[in-house]
């Protein structure tokens, strides 16, 4: 009994929280890489972690992304989180669900790893369990991270050992399958609005509409087309998309901006996708301030009602000239907290002067012109150049 007590005290004193592993080489696995393989192998990989949550289970997808970043950077020459611009030889698709072990403590995770080559063919698949336990208990996320890193590293070593002789290496020339082919039942997670600025299929939208998308589509007049990001600025919240499409209508951009205070404007867009029909909507208002939130530059305030899905849409005057791009609205929750009231129609747009500078910088063609049509005609043209942006995450 005495010895048992001493042993228990020693174990308790020695117990400590997990410390996150700092390098992939420090991740201990049973699997060993074959001696004839020198790391990192020259293949490019992208990784994608499923973010869906199963009932009564937890998805630590953020920790899995961190673990994949650590491990893959040691094993492969190029690696990164999958996005719409990723070029890769292999896609690592990972899904994980975790639950707390109420008997012994620690997180039990089931991890599924699929390796798919650039043609869309699955070349490796493994489902395994990992145990994360540490004295940190429920919140010992370092233990979760370490267990993910160990599990993924072991599986990827097995993949490399099995496929080393036939590994695809930096094969950018061979055709890559459409990202949709890598996922079953892929549905657009978020939507926004864009508008054509030239007749070459280049559409302007807000950068946050296409941020973190693994695949982007542009929908126009019943056609759905794959889109790629031509240029993007997180700072300005602007992006230009390229689609293989010969559109006819484009927005009119004035050589000299005329966004005077009080000017009547309208917004065309595709708000509340999934709730409202796919027809474009049009709301009217005016430029209510030439400034935005304190400290913002190149932003103005307008009163035309907007909803989620309007972001990236064109704000035009009644003659059909671009005044700006829909960017954001005042956060109602923040307003309620700070002022005990909600705001009404306080929306923000990126002014056309800034849009032009962005287009010029990225060499996106547009024809400066002044439109002098009436409201009915302007709104009809706006419907023609406006399009819906679908973002798959």
């Amino acid at each position: 009994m005495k010895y048992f007590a001493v042993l228990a005290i020693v174990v308790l004193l020695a117990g400590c929280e997990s410390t996150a592993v700092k390098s992939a080489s420090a991740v201990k696995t049973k699997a060993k890489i074959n001696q004839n393989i020198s790391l990192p192998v020259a293949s490019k990989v992208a990784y994608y972690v499923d973010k869906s949550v199963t009932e009564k289970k937890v998805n630590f997808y953020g920790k899995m992304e961190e673990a994949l970043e650590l491990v893959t950077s040691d094993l492969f020459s190029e690696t990164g989180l999958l996005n719409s611009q990723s070029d890769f030889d292999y896609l690592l698709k990972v899904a994980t669900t975790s639950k707390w072990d109420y008997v012994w403590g620690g997180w039990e995770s089931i991890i599924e790893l699929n390796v798919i080559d650039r043609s869309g063919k699955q070349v490796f698949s493994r489902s395994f369990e990992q145990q994360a336990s540490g004295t940190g208990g429920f919140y010992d996320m370092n233990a979760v991270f370490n267990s993910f890193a160990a599990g993924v590293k072991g599986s990827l070593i097995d993949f490399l050992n099995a496929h080393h002789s036939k590994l695809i290496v930096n094969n950018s020339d061979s055709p890559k399958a459409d990202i949709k082919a890598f996922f079953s039942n892929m549905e657009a997670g978020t939507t926004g609005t864009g508008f054509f600025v030239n007749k070459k299929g280049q559409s302007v939208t807000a950068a946050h509409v296409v941020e973190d998308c693994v695949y982007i589509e542009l929908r126009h007049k019943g056609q759905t087309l794959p889109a790629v990001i031509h240029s993007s600025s997180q700072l300005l919240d602007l992006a230009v998309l390229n689609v293989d499409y010969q559109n006819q209508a484009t927005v009119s951009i004035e050589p000299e901006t005329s966004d005077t205070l009080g000017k009547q404007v309208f917004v065309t867009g595709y708000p509340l996708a999934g709730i409202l029909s796919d027809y474009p909507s049009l709301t009217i208002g005016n430029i209510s301030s030439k400034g935005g939130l304190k400290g913002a530059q190149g932003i103005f305030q307008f009163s035309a009602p907007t909803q989620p899905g309007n972001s990236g849409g064109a704000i035009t005057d009644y003659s059909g000239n671009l005044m700006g791009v829909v960017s954001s609205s005042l956060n109602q929750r923040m307003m309620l907290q700070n002022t005990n009231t909600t705001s009404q129609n306080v929306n923000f747009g990126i002014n056309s002067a800034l849009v032009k500078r962005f287009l010029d910088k990225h060499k996106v063609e547009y024809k400066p012109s002044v439109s002098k049509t009436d409201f009915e005609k302007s709104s009809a043209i706006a419907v023609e150049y406006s399009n819906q942006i679908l973002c798959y995450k």
Partner: protein
Amino acid sequence: MFKQALRTCAKSTLTIVLVCFTASTFSQESKTNSLLEYTHAGKAYPPVFFVSNIEDKRFTQKLEEFKAFSLLDEKAVGIPIGLRILKGHRTKQDGTQFSSLMLSASTLGIIPVVSNTEFKVRYDVFVQGKSIANYEYTMDSTDVNNFWTAAYREYETKPSEQQFLEATLARFLNEIKTNKEVQGVFTEYYDYFE
């Protein structure tokens, strides 16, 4: 004869260990010094929306003294670039705390509870509300509490933690100086808003 050889061997091993230790200490010190110093060269970084839970104004003043950012504005929520600095304190859920707690409980609180603690400072650089870079600096220390009153005690930053907190400023500024993404955003800001 054997004893003498053993003694000589032990002496030489000790000398080698001492030399290695001293060398590593010096190299560590010079590296640390370079991290603790920062002099801003070139144009000041763009204005930032500044958020922090550090109430001590001396800390913000110290950051301003580096003249790295042209403005730290706590109210300008519309500035597209943000800098958030948070400090936090956490008691580690480890064996030391558990065994100390048991010991304290068994003496009805006469012996205090000793815990390992972690003092963390986190810096985030945001663009349009999205973090593009973050850095965390951690300092481990020990905390002593009374078993009965620990739950009611408000944690105050210790002098050593305050010193550590201020030292992280130079480390952070040195780190963002070499961060291409952050520097790219700063350059882009001036491209559009000079």
